[in-house]
């Protein structure tokens, strides 16, 4: 198991190096990628800052807590853009062009090859911006923020990323099972959009869907709860449990989908 993990990390490091070489061929693109994401961050900031001009609190969260929420959202988004986004965007196309066949013949995990081969190194700048925003917003919390708690970022962000990865992979894997799966991409982002808002804004039915069924609601809301509320003792275990179990379930689903793909031919 340790040897497999070591191989995976080694491979990921090689992906990073090659992706950096590829990205540096088009430096103009790096600047644009950064700009695009900053624009997207600005949209979220404008939305909530404008809303808080008209209201004082949203489900007990004031503007300070909401800024922390946005910081977590930006940071998770930045890392998923670096590690997975490009691969998931071209996932269906690759399946349609039978490029998975070539990956199935490599003596390494086809799941890793399909989902994280091409990294987008330009978004590292966005990760720096996102982390800065997060730390700044934590410093503005009304009850203060002991800085030792910022180490929790090292736990909650990977857990959130893992949930993002699992949920996105499950939706993308439908491309292995049905001919035209592009609308699953749109459907996923519909759910993901719901996860980009605090989960306590939604009614119980929707919360059930976005926290348990397609747990996109955990990607940003739960890490925020862990960070802003030291008295909350259940958010972190819940986040870690869902992250681990979904990662396991996703791996099983991937293997089953590949077997179906090989059966259908």
């Amino acid at each position, binding site marked *: 198991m340790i040897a497999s993990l070591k191989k995976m990390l080694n491979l990921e490091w090689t992906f990073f190096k090659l992706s950096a070489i590829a990205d540096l061929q088009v430096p103009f693109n790096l600047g644009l990628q950064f700009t695009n994401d900053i624009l997207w961050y600005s949209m979220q900031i404008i939305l909530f800052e404008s809303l808080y001009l008209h209201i004082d609190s949203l489900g007990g969260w004031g503007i300070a807590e909401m800024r922390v929420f946005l910081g977590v959202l930006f940071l998770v988004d930045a890392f998923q853009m670096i590690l997975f986004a490009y691969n998931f965007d071209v996932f269906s196309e690759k399946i349609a062009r039978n490029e998975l066949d070539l990956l199935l013949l490599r003596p390494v995990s086809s799941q890793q090859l399909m989902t994280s081969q091409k990294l987008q190194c330009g978004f590292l700048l966005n990760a720096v911006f996102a982390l800065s925003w997060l730390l700044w917003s934590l410093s503005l919390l009304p009850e203060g923020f002991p800085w030792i708690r910022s180490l929790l970022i090292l736990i909650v962000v990977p857990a959130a990323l893992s949930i993002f990865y699992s949920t996105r992979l499950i939706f993308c894997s439908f491309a292995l099972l049905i001919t035209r799966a592009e609308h699953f991409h749109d459907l996923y982002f519909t759910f993901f959009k719901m996860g980009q808002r605090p989960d306590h*804004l939604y009614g119980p039915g929707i919360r059930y869907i976005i926290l348990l069924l397609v747990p996109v609601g955990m990607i940003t809301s739960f890490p925020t709860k862990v960070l802003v509320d030291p008295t909350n003792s259940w958010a972190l275990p819940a986040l870690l449990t869902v992250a681990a179990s979904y990662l396991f379930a996703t791996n099983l689903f991937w293997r089953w989908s590949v077997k179906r793909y090989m059966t259908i031919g």
Partner: protein
Amino acid sequence: MGIVVVPVCYFLVEAAFWTGLIKASGDELLGGFSARYYLGYFLYLILQLGSMNWRFERAMIAEINNGAVNALLLRPSSFFEYHMGQLLGQKLITALAMLPIISFIAWRWDLPFHAERLPMVFLMGICYVILLFSLHFAVASMAFFFDNVYSLNNSKNMIIWILTGELMPLDLLPSPIREWIIALPFSCGFYIPAAYLSGRIEIDVFLRGFISLAIGGVAFGLLAQFVWKRGVRRYSGTGA
């Protein structure tokens, strides 16, 4: 099925968010409007007239990059007309197919929906599609000059998304930013038709939108023509 399900899903997401938001704020009104008005506003999402089809845009850039544009350049109709025709057709069919769904949702949940304003809203939607297409065409034509235009295209779409009011009703923005943004032609992509259809604004603001649409349409049309002509002249026939 995706053409029907996806826009309805977009609406449901916004509906869930805005009703939850207003409830969680503890007030019945947000910016002077109740949750019903926000639902009525976001009904326009289902028509999909205000948004560009991202896959379609990427396809056009890919055609220039890989040389598939060669075949289209040899056809008796122009590249602009070819793609415009495709897009308008897709938008109109989607919008017409969605009308019964919108009407049903508005009736079932008693949402503010002025059906008699639909013809004018459709007209604005079509004019906006033409304007947006011209801008998109100009940006996509930059694929003649640059290797990778996708990021530039994404930037353009991101900015437009903020300016149309699809993210949130523009009247929630602070003054004077609100007035400046509503004055731009992009507000005709979502805010003005959606607000007019739901009764959030009246005919005077709606008609002012046509003026900015006309100015924007001419400007982007000229830009598209200019960039395209220069691009074709420069074109090296990649993949021919």
